[in-house]
C-alpha cells in the first residue's frame, strides 16, 4: 500500500467478535493499515465528521469505511447517508458489511452511494474468505483524499 498516504480503515461494527474476526482476517491478507474500530454510530459519526459535524477534521486524509447496518443507536444507513452527503467525506469508499440480504436494503445502500455491499456469509470459511479478499482488494485500490 502507498505508504506516503496511509489509508485509515474506519470500522463501524457493534459486535466485538465480528470486529475482531474482521480485523484478524484483514491482517491475514497482509493489510497493515491502521484500523479504527467503533462500536456505535454516534462515536463513529463524531470521528468521521468531527465534533462540529462539518467533516473538516478529516480534510486531506484517506479514509475507508467498513460499515455494519445493525447498530445499537442508529442504522448504518444513517451513517452512510451523512458520510455521502458531506462534501469532505463523500468520496471516501464505504463498504457495507452486514447480515441483511434484503434486496430493498441493498438497493437503498447503493442509491445512497455505498461503494460495495457485502453480506456476511454465515459459514465461517465464506466469511473469512470474503474478508481476506476484501483486504486484498484494499491493498490495491486507490482511495481519494478527502477535501
Amino acid at each position, binding site marked *: 500500500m502507498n505508504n506516503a498516504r496511509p489509508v485509515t480503515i474506519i470500522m463501524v461494527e457493534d459486535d466485538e467478535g465480528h470486529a475482531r474476526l474482521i480485523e484478524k482476517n484483514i491482517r491475514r491478507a497482509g493489510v497493515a493499515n491502521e484500523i479504527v474500530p467503533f462500536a456505535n454510530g454516534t462515536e463513529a459519526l463524531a470521528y468521521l465528521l468531527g465534533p462540529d459535524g462539518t467533516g473538516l477534521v478529516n480534510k486531506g486524509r484517506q479514509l475507508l469505511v467498513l460499515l455494519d447496518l445493525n447498530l445499537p443507536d442508529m442504522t448504518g444507513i444513517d451513517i452512510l447517508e451523512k458520510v455521502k452527503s458531506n462534501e469532505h467525506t463523500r468520496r471516501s469508499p464505504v463498504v457495507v458489511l452486514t*447480515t441483511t440480504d434484503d434486496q430493498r436494503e441493498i438497493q437503498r445502500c447503493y442509491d445512497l452511494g455505498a461503494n460495495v455491499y457485502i453480506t456476511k456469509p454465515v459459514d465461517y470459511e465464506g466469511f473469512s474468505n470474503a474478508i481476506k479478499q476484501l483486504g486484498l482488494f484494499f491493498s490495491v485500490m486507490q482511495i481519494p483524499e478527502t477535501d
Partner: protein
Amino acid sequence: MPITSKTFVRSTALLLLVGLLALIGIVGTSIWLTDRSQVYLDEVIEARIARRAAVDLRASLLDMETGQRGYLLTLDESYLEPYEAARPRVLEQVEALKRVLAPYEVAAAPLQQLEADVTFKLAEMDETITQARANDVNAAIARVRTDQGQEAMNGIMTFIDSLISAVDARLVEGVGNQRSTGEALRIVSIVGGLIILMVVAGAIWAVLSYTQELANARRAVEEANTSLEERVRERTSELGKANEEIQRFAYIVTHDLRAPLVNIMGFTAELETSVDEVKTYMEAQETAGDDPLASQARIAATEDLPEAISFIRAATRKMDGLINAILKISREGRRQLNPEPVELSEIAETSAAAVHHQVAESEGSIETDIRVGKLITDRLSLEQILGNMLDNAVKYQEPSRPLRVVIRARHVPGNRVHIEVEDNGRGIADADHERVFELFRRSGSQTSAGEGIGLAHVRTMVRSLGGDVTLTSSLGEGTTFIINLPRDSRAFLGRLGA
C-alpha cells in the same frame, strides 16, 4: 302483517279447502236442485195429463147426455150424432184416467165408484135410447125421471171436479216448488260464489304478502351477506397483517441469531487453527520424558480439544442449517406472490424431468395425468411445491422396488383443483401424518440427510395460495399427497393484500 312460510302454507291450504268445499257445495246442491225440479216437472206433466183425461171424459159424457136428451125430446136421429161420436171414446177415456191415476192409492176407491157410475150412466142412456127407438118414449122418459142417471152423472161430475181442483192445486204447488227450487239454486250459487270470491281474495292476499315477505327476507339476507363479506374481508386483512408480522418477526429473529453464530463459528475456526498449531508442537515434543502434566497437556491438545471443536462445529453447522431454513421459509412468506395463468401439465412435466435422472437410476417412472387447464396462481410456488413432492418421493422411495410416481389433477366443486402426487415409497406411519408437515420434524428412519423443512415449506406455500395439503399413506406401501388449490388464487391473494 308478517307471514311465515308455515302460516302461508297453512292458510293457503285452508283457503283451498274452503274453496273446494264451497265448490262441492254449489255443484252438489245444483245437481240435487236440478233433480228436484225434474221431479216437479214430471209431476206437473203427469198432473196435466190427468187433468186432460178428466176433462175429456167429462166432455164426452156431457156430449152423450146432450145427444140423449135431444133425441128423447125430438126423436130426431141427427141429435144422436154427438152421442154416437162420444160413445166409443168414453170407456177408453176412463181407462186412460185409470192409467194416469194408477200410482195414487187414494184414488183407487173413487175410481171404482167412477167406473161404476160411468157404466151405470152408459147403460141408462143406451137403455133410454133403445126404448125411444122402439117408440116407447114415455118409458124412456120415465127411466130418466128416476133420477138415477142424474145421480150417477152428478157423482161423475163431482169426481171430475174434485180431481181437476186437486190437479190444479197440485199444479200451483208444483210451480211454487219449481220457483223455490230456482230461488234456492240462486241463493246457493250466490253464497258459493261469494265464498269462492273470498277464498280467491284471501289466497291472493296471502300470496302477495308472502311474496312481499320473501322479498324483504331476501333483501335482509343480501344486506347480511354484504356486511358479512365486509367483515370477512376485514378479518382476512387483519390475519394477513398478523401473518406478515410473524414472518417479519421470524426474519428479524433469524437475522439476529445469525450474528452471534458467526462469532461462534469464527472463533471456533480461530481456535481450531490455534489448536492445530499447539497439536503440531505437542506431537513434535512427543519424546520429552514422562512428566504426567506434559502428557495430559498432550492428550488435551491432540485429542480432547480437536474433539470438542469438532462437536462445536457440528452443532453450529446444524444450528446454521436450522436458521437458514427458518430464514428461507420466512423469506418465502415475504415474497410477493404473482398470480398468472399457469399450465399445470407443463409444470408437472418440468418437475418430473428435474428428477428424471434419479428416478431412472432405480428404473422408476413418473406418470402425469393432468385433466385441468390453466390455473391462475403463482408459478414459482407451484414449481417449488411439485418439486418438493417429487424430491421427497425420490428420497423416501422403497429400495426394494422401482419407484412409481403418479401426478394427477382433477377439478373439484367450488372452482378448485385437486393435485395428487402418489408414490409407492416407504410410506408414513399414521401417527406422523400431521407431524411431517411441521417444521424440523421428520418421519421414519433417518436414512437421508435433511432438515425437515420441505413439507413445512410446501404447506406454507400452498396455504399462501389459498389452498391446503393433506396426505393419505400406509406404511410400507406408499403415500399420496393431496393438494387442494383454488383455480384462481387472485381473489384470495387480493383479499390478503386488501
